[in-house]
């Protein structure tokens, strides 16, 4: 009989191995599902994981797209991971992403059609500020009135979506758009656009910002006292208080950083790949980033890899849909399995699996 035995401390080997094992298990279970749908499972898995990277027909386009898709996921997930480590649950990154995009695009459009090199940096600042302000609302409500930040930040997403609708229909609507909702296309306004920096690489400022965030978070957590405080607050809140960690300050800081990074992601997206504010501008990056943060074990390098992997399943999933005729729901189930198996095999890093009856502890 199988039974579980708690490890004295989490196994380092399994901590590193569980994501890999989760991917392998997802491939197996996904393969079974694809086979049940009447598709060749090997071909399906190959189309999802291999073709976007190495298929001669698609790879030259898909590989850079991986960065485009992963960029905002990584940027948001890095910010979220800091809070998650400290036990501060910002679930509303989607709303902060929207507000960052609105603030940044609003600044850019206010200058239209002036051309100046300073406009884009100003938009970047406004984007970060927009996300920060939106995150400060649940943060201050928590520190002042002890509200639950999970609930408040989540509900703020729906408010942000309504503001987005209102902006695309009203204030930010393209006056030359024939009455249709949506702003001017920022990609056609050089001073405010966030273009591909080197043609064919997918690199835009948002991707660079994501890489910078990974490095900064890594240094923060490994080398800085603040990183220590964040980790301590999550693992042992009482000990943290004795060590002089100010819980109020930590909430404001972690919510603020995650909000600002989500806002930046929104700004880079609206000025770059999306191009314009529209009613359905947000496509769930803020929520998917939560999965990315946990898939990457709340570790900056892990998040980088997890973001790329998640992007791969999106892009590969799209290929599988129209190359093999797999339904979209099967791809979503496949992505869901990834998180499911990760959480399941996570058990292995904290517990040992033993065969046989329970032995009395000595």
């Amino acid at each position, binding site marked *: 009989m199988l039974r579980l035995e708690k490890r004295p401390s989490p196994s380092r080997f399994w901590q590193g191995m569980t994501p890999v094992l989760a991917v392998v298990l997802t491939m197996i279970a996904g393969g079974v599902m694809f086979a049940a749908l009447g598709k060749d499972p090997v071909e399906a898995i190959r189309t999802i994981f291999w073709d976007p990277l190495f298929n001669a027909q698609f790879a030259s386009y898909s590989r850079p797209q991986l960065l485009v898709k992963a960029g905002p996921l990584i940027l948001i997930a890095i910010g979220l991971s800091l809070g998650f480590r400290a036990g501060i649950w910002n679930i509303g990154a989607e709303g902060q992403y929207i507000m960052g995009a609105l603030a940044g695009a609003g600044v850019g459009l206010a200058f239209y059609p002036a051309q100046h090199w300073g406009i884009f940096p100003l938009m970047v600042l406004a984007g970060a500020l927009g996300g920060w302000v939106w995150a400060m609302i649940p943060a201050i409500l928590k520190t002042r009135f002890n509200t639950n930040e999970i609930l408040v930040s989540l509900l703020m997403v729906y408010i942000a979506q309504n503001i987005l609708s209102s902006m695309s229909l*009203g204030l930010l609507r393209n006056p030359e758009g024939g009455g249709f909702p949506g702003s001017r296309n920022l990609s056609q306004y050089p001073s405010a656009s966030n273009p591909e920096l080197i043609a064919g690489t997918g690199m835009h400022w948002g991707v660079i910002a994501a890489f910078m965030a990974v490095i900064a978070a890594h240094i923060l957590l490994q080398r800085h006292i603040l990183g220590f405080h964040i980790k301590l607050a999550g693992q042992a809140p009482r000990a943290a208080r004795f060590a002089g960690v100010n819980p109020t300050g930590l909430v404001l800081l972690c919510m603020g950083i995650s909000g600002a990074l989500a806002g930046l992601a929104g700004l880079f997206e609206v000025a770059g790949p999306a191009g314009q504010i529209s009613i359905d501008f947000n496509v769930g990056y803020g929520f998917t980033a939560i999965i990315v943060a946990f898939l990457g074990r709340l570790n900056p390098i892990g998040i980088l890899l997890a973001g790329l992997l998640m992007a791969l399943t999106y892009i590969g999933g799209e290929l599988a849909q*129209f190359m093999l005729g797999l339904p979209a729901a099967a791809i979503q189930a496949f992505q869901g399995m990834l998180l499911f198996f990760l959480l399941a095999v996570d058990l292995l890093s904290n517990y040992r699996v033993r065969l046989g009856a329970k032995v009395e502890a000595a």
Partner: protein
Amino acid sequence: MNRRTLLATAALGLGLAFGGVANAQAMDKAKACFVYVGPIGDLGWSYQHHQGALAVQEAYGDKVEVTWQENVPEGADAERVLTQMALSGCNIIFTTSFGYMDATNAVAAKFPNMKFEHATGYKREQPNVATYNARFYEGRAIQGHIAGKMTKSNKIGYIGSFPIPEVIMGINSYYLHAKKVNPAVELTVVWAFTWFDPAKEADAAKAMIEQGVDVIASHTDSTAPLAEAAKANGAVIGFGQASDMADYKPSPRVSSIIDNWAPYYVKRVGEVLDGTWTQTDVWAGIKDGEVEIGEITDAVPAEVKAEAEAMRDAIAAGTYHPFTGPIKKQDGSDWLAEGAVAPDGDLLGMGFYVEGITADIPK
């Protein structure tokens, strides 16, 4: 009736300049690709486009390979999906939602040898982009007539998706024709801000029913509003939208607007095969068979049914236009004079309600 609209003169100029210059080579085998905004199982908008895709397969058999992708978000993702489709060797790509407009034109610029067909949009920035739409407002006129006759509370409702001209003209047409047969009628509009979200659509229907609305038309893609109406045990009726939604016959679904894209898709893919495809802007209606009125059930009194069918036949014959003056705008200013018929340009850019509607278009 295939005709260019007068909406965007610049785009029209492009169309005239480049239309007909398109690739005139016939091919033995073509690949036709479809992009859907919802799941093909939505039983509404995307489902109906997919029926058109299947009709293409049926019509040409081995000569055409049909592929599709569902649930594609409008925005940055659409551009990637379209590019990957183009790279996979599609000869013609149908992008079946308004929000794909910019992405369609951007990708078309990169693949000048491929044909792109964008549904319900107005931008034809590249010579290889055609647009097509259906005159749904014709069907809305018939629904409005039925609604005006059938309502007992004199409150009728409309679930809007997005406040774009296509939806606003549907609301206006619905209201005008309800008002014509029932001057006491009041219209409630609820905006869902989505094309497909059964939960939101059901909430919208529920809210209206609580306010006493007993006839609900919807401009979203799922059957959820009808499912909600069905709970009222016959007190509330509605209409099938985009698809017949026959499962809800005879009530609450008393009639429907059916989008029949199949003839257009078969024709356009055929033109790709024989090399005669050119850039066009098609806005077809009941007359062309693109908009069909689903069976009016026995839940509607025979005389109302006869009147509704007479209106359908008059629209098909071209003797009646749903927007015939005198019609004033909501603010009381004149729009159409006595006997005047709305120009297509006015309809395609419609951003106002007609007189009598008390709601405001969201800003």
